[in-house]
């Protein structure tokens, strides 16, 4: 896991996807009058109430402090921690400097909390003790830049103290850097003290330098100090602007009154300028009043946003909920979502909640994904939260509001059962505020046309898996034109290229036709459509670099290689296959990083390993267990060996007195490879070729589909991806078995990587892949192998059904390896 805190109920990442992590400050006997009064009256339930309110206002961690003169801190903290641990869902920050109190709380608390705080006032004696406790109980700790001389004022001194604390914690006491949160402390810029004019600048510089020079550590800041001494309404604005600057500088967490943070968007340009001048001590030179008097003057009379922010009770609650919901979407957290939405709809129309809060949050998710900062499974988790929020709001929308949204019709084309590409598109579209009418798979053009009219679609989206489906899309477009449709059409799928779309599809239709590489490209197209700027895909051949197609291992294909003797000629069908024997062939890297989207991306090697160990491998083990025990994977094979001979660029396969011709392309450039060359010609005495069709059945796809129906998008992707890689593993497994049957299994790979790089004799070539692109070959293959007997059929566009099926021709020639034409 990434460094996190946890309560009984949930874990919170210390470095949240959108910083800062908000730490609620009101449950502090020194900072909140109300909390203090309740504590002094032994009203612990009342204290808890304040904590719950902070949570509802969007706090993600709660600072809890009961150190108050005349009270028994140990007793109070134990009482409070046990109550809070049971009722508050967010993790706690134990705010105490007394080692005995800290230890008692760490013992009591049923999660991972953070201790606030240690410093070097006494030269490090206490800090060393507390670090020991932190290590013993596996907690995190805040370290303040306070030394023997008191609070450091300059950036240099703050950084120097941070380094010393870091040395003590990490080198001496064995903590990990990620267990540390440095608080570079700030003084107020609001008191008019000349020596403090650069207080904000010093703190921001210190944050920047601590992050740069102490890798892996976090930073935290008590925000409100900065504006001490100023009028309450203006403090909120200044605090919020300062927070924004601090986050830019690298701040990870802030101790704040979560309800009082004003979103930057609500602060006017002018207000911001006035605040920045004060923070950066600008414009004080020469004539006229300095930044502080100007600040006070500005906020004295007209202070619109500030006034709005304090207008009426509940305003803070509202802003807290606004932030909380937006975070929940970005971080994919569902707990408490409905409560927060209920607060929002008291102040905002339901449609506005969707358009102004939810959709921008999803947009941010898309941007994080685009920058590689959020992995696909997490995007799907966000979409799950979004879906729930919209489902909760939908009954509150008026009919006309509901129909204002742009409507997209989605279909997988005729002859194609590929569901998941289109469904991922539906997830992303519908959770970005579009209305999607998903009419399923294998949909003929006539039905698409009728449905588009019926539902009044604004845009049509078509999906498909194989290249035949791309050809169907082109035909569909001509039919759409004839029927007089005028909606833009978005096209997607793995076998589609922008070039094909631009050159073959665009001319067949009278409205924009757009190639979409993925769902987010589709989203961009929808936004362009709404803005009136959507145009057809264009292809400029010259602008694109031509891919260097690798090939050529060795030159001339050697003739006269001995022909192995197969155990039988003709086809056989195998249905008794032990799944447990197939699973070791699963390409784990391709599954985790490719199909599932758990890339290392910007994580460190250790963080990635933690993600794998904490989330990914347990998931794989669970699916593997179910594959074996619950029959989720049903491996079946149709395969055979046939006499054959090459004739130029073709292979002739002989069976039952009939000849089947398989033409193969030849590379135009050296070394001019062609699959036919791996087989002997008739004159050379003929040869033997293997074929197989393997499937893992439909159970897993059914399971995946049910997950999709239940809005469990992440699990949907995981289950489907697992099925895909097990299907490939079955092909690998069976290919190995055929090598053994042919007696050419002398040099088998020692590990999985050896299979990836084809470290065995011969090769298998899948029809539709670059060396044998013709899917037409499936017709003779099906005549030879009769895969109908294992439940596999061929659609009118040559797709094998069920989808989790793969086919290949097996060549034994030692030089046979993958290549592209």
């Amino acid at each position, binding site marked *: 896991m990434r460094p996190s805190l946890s309560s009984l109920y949930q874990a919170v990442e210390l470095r949240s996807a959108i910083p800062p992590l908000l730490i609620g400050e009101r449950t502090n006997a020194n900072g909140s009058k109300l909390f203090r009064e309740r504590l002094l009256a032994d009203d612990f339930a009342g204290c808890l109430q304040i904590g719950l309110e902070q949570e509802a206002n969007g706090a993600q961690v709660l600072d809890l402090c009961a150190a108050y003169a005349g009270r028994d801190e140990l007793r109070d903290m134990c009482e409070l921690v046990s109550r809070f641990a049971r009722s508050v869902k967010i993790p706690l920050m134990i705010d105490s400097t007394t080692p005995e109190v800290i230890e008692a709380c760490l013992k009591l608390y049923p999660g991972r909390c953070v201790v606030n705080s240690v410093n070097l006032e006494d030269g490090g004696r206490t800090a060393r003790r507390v670090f020991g406790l932190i290590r013993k109980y596996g907690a995190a700790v805040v370290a303040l830049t306070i030394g023997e001389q008191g609070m450091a004022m300059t950036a240099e001194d703050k950084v120097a103290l941070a380094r010393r604390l870091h040395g003590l914690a990490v080198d001496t006491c064995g903590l990990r850097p990620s267990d540390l949160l440095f608080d570079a402390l700030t003084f107020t810029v609001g008191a008019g003290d000349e020596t403090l004019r650069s207080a904000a600048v010093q703190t921001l510089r210190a944050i920047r330098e601590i992050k740069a020079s102490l890798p892996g550590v976090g930073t935290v800041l008590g925000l409100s100090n900065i504006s001490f001494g100023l009028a309450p309404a203006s403090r909120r604005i200044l605090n919020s602007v300062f927070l924004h600057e601090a986050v830019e500088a690298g701040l990870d967490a802030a101790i704040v009154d979560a309800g009082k943070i004003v979103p930057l968007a609500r602060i006017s340009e002018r207000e911001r300028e006035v605040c920045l001048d004060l923070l950066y001590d600008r414009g004080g030179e020469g004539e006229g009043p300095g930044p502080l008097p100007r600040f006070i003057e500005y906020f004295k009379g007209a202070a619109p946003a500030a006034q709005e922010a304090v207008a009426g009770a509940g305003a803070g609650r509202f802003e807290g909920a606004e932030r909380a919901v937006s975070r929940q979407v970005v971080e994919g957290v569902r707990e408490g979502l409905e409560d927060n939405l209920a607060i929002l709809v008291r102040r905002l129309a339901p449609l506005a909640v969707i358009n102004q809060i939810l959709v921008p949050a999803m947009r941010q998710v898309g941007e994080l994904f685009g920058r590689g900062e959020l992995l696909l499974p997490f995007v799907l988790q966000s979409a799950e939260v979004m879906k729930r929020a919209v489902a909760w709001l939908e009954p509150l929308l008026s009919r006309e509001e509901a129909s204002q949204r742009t409507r997209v019709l989605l279909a997988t084309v005729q002859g194609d059962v590929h569901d998941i590409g289109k469904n991922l598109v539906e997830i992303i579209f519908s959770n970005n505020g579009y209305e999607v009418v998903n009419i399923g798979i294998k949909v003929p053009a006539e039905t698409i046309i009728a449905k588009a009219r019926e539902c009044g679609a604004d845009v049509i989206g078509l999906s498909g898996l194989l290249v035949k489906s791309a050809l169907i899309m082109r035909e569909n477009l001509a039919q759409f034109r004839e029927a007089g449709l005028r909606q833009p059409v978005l096209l997607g799928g793995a076998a589609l290229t922008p070039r094909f779309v631009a050159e073959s599809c665009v001319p067949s239709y009278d409205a924009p036709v757009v190639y979409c590489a993925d769902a987010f490209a589709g989203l961009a197209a929808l936004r362009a459509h709404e803005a009136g700027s959507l145009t057809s895909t264009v292809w400029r051949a010259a602008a694109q670099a031509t891919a260097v197609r690798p090939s050529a*291992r060795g030159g001339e294909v050697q003739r006269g290689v001995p022909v192995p003797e197969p155990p039988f000629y003709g086809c056989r069908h195998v249905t008794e296959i032990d799944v447990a024997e197939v699973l070791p062939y699963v390409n*784990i890297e391709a599954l985790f990083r*490719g199909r599932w989207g758990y890339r290392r991306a910007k994580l460190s090697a250790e963080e990635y390993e933690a993600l794998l160990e904490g989330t990914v491998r347990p998931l794989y083990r669970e699916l593997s267990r179910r594959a074996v025990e619950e029959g989720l994977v049903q491996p079946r094979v149709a395969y055979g060996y046939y006499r054959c001979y090459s004739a130029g660029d073709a292979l002739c396969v002989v069976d039952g007195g009939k000849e089947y011709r398989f033409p193969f392309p030849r590379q135009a450039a050296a070394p001019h490879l062609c699959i036919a060359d791996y087989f002997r010609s008739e004159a050379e005495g003929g040869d033997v070729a293997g074929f197989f069709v393997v499937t893992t059945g439909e159970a897993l796809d059914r399971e995946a589909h049910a997950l999709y129906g239940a809005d469990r998008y992440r699990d949907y992707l995981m289950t489907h991806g697992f099925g895909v890689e097990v299907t490939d593993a079955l092909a690998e497994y069976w290919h190995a078995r055929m090598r053994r049957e042919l007696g050419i299994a002398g040099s088998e790979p020692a590990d999985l990587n050896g299979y*990836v790089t084809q470290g065995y004799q011969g090769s298998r070539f899948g029809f539709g892949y670059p060396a044998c692109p013709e899917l037409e070959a499936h017709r003779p293959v099906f005549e030879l192998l009769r895969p109908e007997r294992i439940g596999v059929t061929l659609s009118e566009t040559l797709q094998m059904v069920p989808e989790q099926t793969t086919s290949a021709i097996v060549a034994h020639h030692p030089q046979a390896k993958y290549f592209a034409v």
Partner: protein
Amino acid sequence: MKMICTNCGYVYDPAEGDPMGGVEAGVAFEALPEGWVCPLCYAGPAAFDAYG
């Protein structure tokens, strides 16, 4: 740094280069020629992920 193809699992190791794609040993992943693709599955460089 070694990079892995997320589509097929091929590992690009700068110490070895990609002889099949005509890339000599010692070429960093970032320095691969434009248009370079995975020698096994032809996925583009965007499909590669940090390995190790």
